[in-house]
Structure formats: C-alpha cells, structure tokens
C-alpha cells in the first residue's frame, strides 16, 4: 500500500508577536484531497496560522511538517499555491499584463536564467483558461475589475500545478456574482482535479456542503471533522461569542 503523508502536520504550534500570544498549542493534520475551512473572529489568528504554514512567519515553538518533511528542510514550495488576503487590490499603474502575472507562478520552477519552456507555456495557458482570463492575456492587471483580478491571482497560484491551494479571504472588493463563481471553482478544483484546499473565510455557509474539515481559530485551535455540526447557528454563536447566522447557498 502506498503511504500518503499528511499535507500539513502541525504539533504544539505557538506564536507570539511582541510578547502577545497570537496562537497557542495548535495541533492538526490536513490530508490529501481535503477541503478545509479556517474560520474564526477577526484577529483570532487565521491568517497568522497560514503564514506560519508557508514560512512567512517564524513560530515561537512547535513543529510544522509539509508533505511529511520538516518545514526547515522543505524545498518543494511550488506544490503549494497561495492566494493572499486582498490580493485583488493591486496598484492600478503597476506595469504587468495578465499573462506576466500568471507566469510568475512558474518562476520558482524555472531556476536562474531559466527560459520559459513549452511546459511552462502550457501550464500558464491552462491556468488562464481554467480561470476564464485567457482572453484578457495582454490587458494590464490594473485595468481589470476586482473579480477579474481575483481570477488572475488564482490562475497564478494554479500555474505552478500545486497539490494544495491556500486561499485567504479572497473576496475583498469582489462583486457577489464573482464570489459565487469563485466558490464554484474551488468546488471543481477539489472534486474534479482532486486538489486540496485550505480556505480562510467568514462565509462558511456558502461552502458548508463542500468542506471536509473545519479549523476554528481564536488564539487556540478547535478542529472539527463534522462540518455540518460545526456550522450550526448555535455552535457558531457559542464559538464566536456573539449571535451568528449561517447562511447556506444552493449550488
């Protein structure tokens, strides 16, 4: 039997910022193929947790393994696609076409002085077509709408052919229709392309039917493999400490 390691394995993770505890004793695993929602109140440590996984912040203590490899020795960063918070809010004058931005997703694979290979070109085109931005290829990123920019940023993450996609509250400045298209796309990526997804969101009701695991982060971490129970209004209200309403949507 082929052994398939966890995508992420986190043990006793602590993180302090300027003496203040942000994350305490986080322990969890994410398995291949999972669709995991990370929820919690603002300032609870959701983004910090993702940044710790990606090595953008240094943990105070604890252990992180990526694809079974300790984070310090991990080199295959192109296996992880990352779409950060507010990524759609780019400088409107930045000289970058849609294709140039999507091509960035391949840079880590190309190495020093590496020119674009046929495989690079194919992956870039495939990612643009999947996200429906191929016809915008030569347009400047700053001239696009919020929804279009969001799709370009996801195309960039997908261009590296990642095993897992991490998306951090990507819907800032994006219209409702684009948001629904976005949720549908995540579902397709997870179900059809078998891509694992870690999704930081406040809008858990929209994806309640798709998710396989919920991480509730509010300094400490609560892991649930029973999303249906976790997304009940009374449970959410208890966790957030304030009346919460979960709005579910039909796909």
């Amino acid at each position, binding site marked *: 039997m082929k052994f398939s390691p966890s995508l992420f394995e986190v043990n006793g993770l602590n993180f302090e910022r300027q003496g203040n505890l942000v994350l305490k004793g986080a322990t969890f695993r994410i398995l291949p193929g999972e669709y995991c929602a990370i929820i919690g109140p603002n300032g609870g440590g959701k983004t910090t947790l993702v940044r710790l996984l*990606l*090595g*953008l912040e240094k943990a105070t203590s604890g252990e992180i393994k990526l694809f079974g490899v300790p984070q310090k020795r991990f*080199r*295959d*960063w*192109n296996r*992880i696609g*990352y779409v*950060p918070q507010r*990524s759609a809010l*780019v400088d409107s*004058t*930045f*000289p*970058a*076409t849609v*294709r*140039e*931005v999507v091509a*960035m*997703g391949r*840079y*880590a694979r*190309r190495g*020093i*002085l590496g020119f674009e290979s046929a495989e690079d070109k194919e992956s870039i085109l495939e990612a643009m077509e999947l996200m429906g931005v191929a016809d915008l290829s*030569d347009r*400047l990123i700053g001239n696009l709408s919020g929804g279009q920019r969001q799709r370009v940023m996801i195309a*960039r993450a997908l261009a*590296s052919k990642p095993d897992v996609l991490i998306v951090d509250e990507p819907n800032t400045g994006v219209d409702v229709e684009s948001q629904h298209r976005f949720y549908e796309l995540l579902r397709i990526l997870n179900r059809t392309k078998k891509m694992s997804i870690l999704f930081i969101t406040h809008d858990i009701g929209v994806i309640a039917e798709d998710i396989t695991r919920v991480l509730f982060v509010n300094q400490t971490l609560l892991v649930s493999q029973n999303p249906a129970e976790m997304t009940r209004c009374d449970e959410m209200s208890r966790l957030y400490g304030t009346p919460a309403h979960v709005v579910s949507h039909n796909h």
Partner: protein
Amino acid sequence: MIYEMLDYPFMQRAFIAGLMIAILASLSGSFIVLRRYSLLSETLAHVSLVGVSVGLLLGMSPLWMAVLASLAASWMIEYLRSVHGMYSDSVLAIFLSGSLALAIVIVSMAGSFNASLFSYLFGSILSVSTEDLWVMGIFGSLAMVLLLAFFKELYFIAFDEDVARAGGIRVTLLNFMLVSVIAVIIALSIRVVGTLLIGALMVIPPVAAIRFGMGFYPTTLLSIAIALISVVIGLSASYLFSLPSGAAIVLCLLIIFIIALLVNRR
C-alpha cells in the same frame, strides 16, 4: 560636429561610460520604482559622496572609496528595513541626511579639493579616465549579469513579496543582492552623472516608461531606451555648450518625462 566630438578620447570614454551607466541605472531603477523605494538611489548617492570625500582627503581612489561606502550603507539600510522592520522611508531619510552631514564635515576639514569635488557632485565628461572605464566595465558587467540572472525573481518580488517568498524564492537574499548592485551602479555613475543627479537617471526613465501602460518587459526596454537617448543628447550638449554632463542628462530626462506625461494623460 558629432564625428568631431567623437574624435576626442575623453568624449569616447564619456560616451562608453555614459551608455553603460544608462543601461544599468534604468534597468535596476525599474525595481526600486515599482517597490516605491526610489529614495534609495538618492540616499546611496549621498553616501557615495562620503566615500569620495574620504578618498580625496586620504589621497586614495575616490571611486573605490565610493563603492565601499555605498555598499556598506546599502547593507545597513536593508538590514534595518528587513530584519528590524523599520520604515523604509525613515531609514533612508536618516542615511541621506547623516551621510550628507558627514561629507560636509570631511570636505570642510580638508578645504582644498572643492574644484575636484564639484565634478563628483554634478558629473564631468573630462573626468572619466581609462582606469575608471576598466573599473566600470568589470563591476558593471557583474551587476548586469546579476540583474539579468535574477530579473524574473526581482520582478515577482516587486509585484508581491509575500507570494514570491511563499513560492520558494529567496527574497531576503535577493533584496540584499539588489541593493548591493544598486550601490555599485551608483558609485560607478558619479564620474559621468554626479552624486547629486544619479537618482534621476535611475528613477525618471522607468517612471516615464510606465506612463505608456505596457507590460513589464516592454516597459523595461522603453525605460532603457529613454536613459540611452538622454545620455547621448546630454553628453553632446555638455560638449557643445560646456555644461556639467550630469545636469544636461537630467534635463533631457525631464523633457522626456514631461512628453510622456502629456502623451499619456491618464
């Protein structure tokens, strides 16, 4: 007239140095402009002046001393910004005023090299020696190789530093490399453009090119073309009208920038 001008060895040296600097300054300048770090060139130029002053005071090569001072300052600036998390503009302001103060003190201590210092401040086509050309050729080639080798990574970092880092690009190392390359380019430029004006050759070409609303690669090529045209016209004007070369080059850049603004009123 042009052929006559190029008959003079000092003009040949000035043109070779000027064209080399135009390519290097505008290429590296694209990255600092996009990262809103334009004041870096101005600050390192002032630090170079400290090196020049020390060199003139101690009878050592002002060019070498400028390279050393500029490199040391670039590393300290990047260290304070990236490791200590200090605001970029604050760090640059401290180094800019601090280095100018230090240069003024050194100049006033010596007192006797003001005429020589003038050429370092504003550039002089008469001052480029064959030895300077060799130094520029060696360090300029090295800077060019590094910029081209890591061109796409530097572009990614300028666009989104966090995502570049998350993608496995060695952002900290490349940031140190970029400021080092810029430090060397600035120090090498002072013979032709002068310490007080090199910032313009780094910043104005990319800013003018960005106005044309193209992708990064065509923008970079246009930026280099703008720098080359300005250097050729500026050096020629410097020869014909006995103007300081740096000032003539910067005025050409300004004219092109104004044209870019008028053509692309977005």
